[in-house]
């Protein structure tokens, strides 16, 4: 039926912003921890990959489609102080605010989608 197609498309982005928020929290908590490196998250929207190694070329192996997923990465670059920590509080706060707005937008898209469905069901 695909009733929730609109919602399903937004949910990965909602998950991404929530994960990013948690990563920003971790970076801020460890802003003064020696040797701590800033964490970041990468959103991989969609990719096709071969799940099996090709041993027989006659066999047709269909690529496996994987859904959106996230990679948590450690950032090696950036200004590093005496404590070898590369977290910038200002940058993290700016990212946190931008991410918060993104989260609100995605959440609004989900609720609007549900409300539209409600309207259609009730016929009002």
């Amino acid at each position, binding site marked *: 039926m695909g009733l929730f197609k609109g919602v399903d498309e937004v949910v990965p982005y909602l998950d991404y912003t*929530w*994960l*990013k*928020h*948690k*990563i*920003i*929290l*971790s970076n*801020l*908590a*460890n*802003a*003064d*921890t*020696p040797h*701590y490196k800033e*964490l970041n*998250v990468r959103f991989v929207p969609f990719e096709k990959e071969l799940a099996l190694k090709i041993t027989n070329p006659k066999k047709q192996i269909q690529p496996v489609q994987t859904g959106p997923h996230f990679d*948590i990465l450690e950032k090696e670059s950036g200004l590093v102080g005496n404590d070898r920590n590369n977290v910038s*509080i200002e940058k*993290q*706060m700016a990212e*946190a*605010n931008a991410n*918060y707005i993104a*989260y*609100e937008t995605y*959440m*609004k898209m*989900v*609720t609007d989608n549900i409300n539209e469905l409600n309207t259609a069901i009730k016929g009002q």
Partner: protein
Amino acid sequence: MLDIFNAFDVSASGMYAERIRMNTIASNLANYESYKNDGTPYQKLEPVFQAVYDNNLLSDGLVPVNVSEIRQSNGFKLIYDPSNPHANAQGYVREPNINVTTEMVDMITATQSYQANLSAFNMTKNIAQFTINSWT
């Protein structure tokens, strides 16, 4: 969204660590001219922060901070003051190795880090509130 409480815990761990740091700075400033009962100078206190990499939490992007120990730093300042009752045979006095300027700068850094964690904590609270309000 059940892990929202873990998210609060991470910010709380950051605030707790910074508060411990503020406590040690306050002790260092209060005792920058003090001696212990045995006559040795007061030694600067330093908290040691350690990131907690737990695999379960890390997969959720959560890395809390822990104060692993509060250590006393070694070394003293040597001042030539023969009239001081703590002076040795050569006339030198050992004094606490505390630099007031360094402590004040550390205090500003700790305050800013605490505030950043508090802002992030409030932001998490707003996210939770917004999510709940969206469905009511």
